[in-house]
């Protein structure tokens, strides 16, 4: 392994570790105010939504738009997840539906 690469990886690891570590290290020693707790209560859905929507409404070349294949798959997975609440099943179903829709040239 090249020495420069090792340095790069260690630098990337450091700036990846700090944002993950510092809040938990600090918060586990202080008491969080109620309004901060209420804010943090909504962070998970906000993060997930900010990851999911751009993935569903993505078009070739990295832009935002409507493509039937990811949109239809997302609707099927969303309904399944809502009714069955099974993570593993959702992932497998999503892969199968996305693959099948690819065969129909949507």
């Amino acid at each position, binding site marked *: *392994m*090249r020495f420069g*690469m*090792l340095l*790069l*990886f260690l*630098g*990337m*690891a450091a*700036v*990846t*570790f700090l*944002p*993950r*570590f*510092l*809040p*938990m*290290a*600090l*918060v*586990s020693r202080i008491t969080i105010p*109620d*309004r901060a707790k*209420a*804010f*943090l*209560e*909504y*962070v*998970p*859905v*906000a*993060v*997930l*939504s*900010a990851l*999911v*929507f751009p*993935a*569903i409404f993505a078009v070739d070349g990295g*832009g*935002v738009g409507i493509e039937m294949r990811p949109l239809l*798959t997302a609707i099927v997975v*969303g309904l*399944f*997840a*809502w009714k069955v*609440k*099974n993570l593993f099943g*959702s*992932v*497998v179903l*999503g*892969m*199968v*539906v*996305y*693959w099948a829709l*690819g065969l129909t040239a949507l």
Partner: protein
Amino acid sequence: MGRDIREGVKAALPIVLGYLPVGIAYGVLARAAGLSTMETGAMSFIVFAGASQFIAVGMLASGIATLPIILTTLAVNSRHLLMSSAIAPHFKGQPLKNLIPLTAQLTDESFALAMADTAKVSGRPHYLIALQATAWLSWVSGSLIGALFGSLIDSASFGIPFAMTALFICLLVIQIKSRAHLAVALIAGALALSFKGALPNNLYIVAATIIAPLVGLWLIQKRAHVEVPVEVEVED
């Protein structure tokens, strides 16, 4: 502790299913960008941050220097500040020997999985450490498989590109527990779509993750400020 570890490993399986193919895709790209198999695996082993690894490999391929890559990685991973804060109350008072593995391997996926059922996670560091270590192993394995056998696998086939999105959709649906959650989710999604073109390095995720919960709090405050005694900062 043994039971926590076993359950954690088992709970990681949906993530493993997503990480293996994405890790393979990363391995293929890293080799194409001129990294050796050893370097490809070492980056996954040492850094363990999917999005920034893809970006770093792309930057390496275009000959960009070390420091800009590290700064970009910091920008991409700044979103974990919020996730780490949100999960922190469940591990209050944990010793450093637990906090380090808990946070070093915190990813979007493990965070989302943990927050989907906090009763399983609260005060059980070994459960989450085992879950995250399993995810990490699958990421490193996928990277090495991609680096070694990438030319034999087409990572765009068999619905592989949708695996991670399906996982996120399910986690999102599970966590919509009220109308306010639904509103925050829709607002965050709309913000992410509108900011995506304008904010580089995944910073649109950070922007959506800060603004949408604030709007959610403001909505709750408006509806019933008697039941929910929280003050809201609208804008800073």
